[in-house]
């Protein structure tokens, strides 16, 4: 009891950092991991001494603004999708499912879908493998300059897609681009048109995305790896497991949730890619032959170039459905793997 009064007295003196330090001497922002489960139980019911009614007051400002500027527009766009909505006209014509069926027979929608998945594939899968590889280098306690490496890997993530797309557009130039130049030095046929050809343009865009997110995801995997209890490795060491076996049978299974998380976030992000192709092409059509038009770019083109709002809203709903289906598949696969592991 004496301890608690001391603490709250200190809190009153507005020295909460000291109070906190007494509990966690090293780093206040990182509580010890072992205590996590205890704490979770404690917070499950909230703080009993605090009047729960205040909860509504505290979440109200967020919810009011979130409903008006976040959720209401989403719901209203479902409404719009059933109309032939002309932003300039006064009366909107009810269209039923026409917008949806029109999308399904629109060749450009399918091109955009193909491009989106192609770019998603080239940007997600290699990136994940590289991120896990980088994380396993970074986690080694013997690594010198750990903070430096972690920090430098995050640099790409802070910069704007626009600025970087301008640079990459130039690096991937057909005639004077550094990428083709480097390929020539390596003895490869290097007159690849990274912008006009469909597949190379997907690779170029995927490179931009990978460049931007690789370090970020490596840090996510690193954090997850550091949270793996070390006794697992100790006992594996005792059993004489090789480093590769430890990676395969301890690290990878323990990263399951993180892999799902990164995959889902990467997929949601991947289905929304538009800034890179927009900047690379300079307009919303996604290249001269729509070779890198993506779903979201297609949506924006219909909405703000062609002024077909109902049609664009229908595209948005298709994107959402695709996102939800893929997320569900991801969850299902991970759960399947998880239960298989438990049955072993």
């Amino acid at each position, binding site marked *: 009891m004496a301890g608690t009064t001391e603490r709250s007295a200190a809190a009153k003196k507005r020295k909460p950092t000291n109070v906190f330090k007494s509990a966690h001497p090293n780093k206040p922002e990182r509580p010890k991991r072992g205590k996590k489960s205890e704490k979770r139980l404690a917070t499950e019911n909230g703080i009993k001494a605090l009047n729960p009614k205040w909860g509504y007051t505290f979440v109200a400002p967020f919810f009011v603004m979130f409903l008006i500027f976040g959720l209401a527009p989403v719901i209203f766009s479902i409404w719009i999708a059933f109309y032939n909505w002309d932003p300039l006209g006064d009366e909107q014509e009810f269209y039923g499912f026409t917008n949806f069926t029109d999308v399904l027979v629109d060749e450009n929608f399918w091109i955009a879908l193909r491009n989106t998945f192609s770019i998603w594939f080239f940007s997600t899968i290699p990136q994940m493998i590289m991120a896990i590889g980088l994380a396993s*280098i970074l986690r080694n306690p013997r690594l010198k300059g750990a903070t430096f490496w972690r920090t430098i890997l995050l640099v790409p993530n802070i910069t704007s897609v626009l600025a970087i797309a301008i640079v990459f557009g130039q690096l991937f130039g057909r005639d004077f681009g550094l990428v083709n130049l480097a390929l020539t030095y390596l003895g490869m046929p290097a007159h690849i048109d990274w912008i006009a050809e469909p597949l190379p343009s997907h690779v170029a865009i995927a490179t931009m995305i990978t460049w931007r997110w690789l370090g970020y995801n490596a840090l996510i995997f690193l954090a997850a790896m550091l949270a793996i209890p070390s006794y697992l490795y100790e006992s594996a060491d005792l059993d004489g497991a090789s480093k590769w076996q430890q990676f395969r049978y301890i690290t990878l299974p323990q990263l399951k949730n993180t892999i799902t998380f990164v995959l889902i976030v990467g997929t949601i992000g991947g289905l929304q890619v538009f800034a890179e192709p927009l900047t690379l092409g300079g307009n919303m059509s996604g290249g001269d032959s729509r070779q890198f038009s993506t779903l979201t770019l297609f949506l924006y083109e219909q909405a703000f170039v062609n002024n077909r709002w109902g049609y664009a809203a229908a595209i948005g709903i298709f994107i959402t459905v695709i996102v939800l289906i893929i997320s569900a598949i991801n969850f299902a696969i991970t759960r399947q793997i998880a239960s298989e592991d438990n049955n072993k």
Partner: protein
Amino acid sequence: MDQVPVTFQKRKKPRWQKMSPLSYITLTLVGFISVFPFYWMVIVASNGNEEISKETPTLLIGPRLFEVLGNVFVANEFFGAAMWNTVFVGTIVAAAQVFFSSVAGFAFAKLNFKGRKFLVLFVIGTMMLPSQLGIIPLYMLVAGLGWMNTLTALIVPALVTAFGVFWMRQVIDAQVPNELLEAASIDGAGVFRIYWQIVFPLILQSGFVLGLFSFLAVWNDFLWPLLVLNDPQQFTVQVAVNQLQSAYTIDYALNLGGAFLATAPLLVLFLFVGRKLVSGVMDGAVKG
């Protein structure tokens, strides 16, 4: 230690292999690729168009950097205003996000009100929705409110995000000990005082990281400002950079000079806060 009779009780750290040179080479390579595009911006902007169109382009910084950067301000006389606008919007949005997210996150983490679990799941669920889904109605709303072509159109819709609340809830759940709040409450502190005097100071670090990410998002946002702004005096920095591109001939030096101006402040900022961002990213990671 040697006298402990049962050796297997002794906790051994896992034996880590020595770092192989290959690991350092890999890291150096990735690090080099991470910063090279920034260096390339400077090379192009400082050498001009002729230099980089040669058979073997130079990899050295040329003498014309300030000339080209000056040209950016000539090509778009409101470029400086655009940078200022972005700082203005970004600061307000960052502060608002930290405040609203931490207040709501505190309630979600520590206050046992009815419907809390449902609301948390609801917030998480909305994070799955692609953000462009609501862009047309939001555009109509902003137009209806008369905010077109004002910075208000950028500020108000960005004041709160589901992600911010979710993140702050995680942070407060993990970093604010319950005993502290219980004790303060027993001593008669009200909920508001507890938030302001105990919770807020404890989560300042993470709040700062959230604020930084919000600021970066505003600084780098491109499409929304492009849609709602059309007066060059109101532009944000990305729109101003994009404006340089619209010319008929591609002026690489000018474009990359603009990109450099839009990026350099972030890199300077990163020098000071990079480590905080790293720990922020890692704290927010899903573990296990």
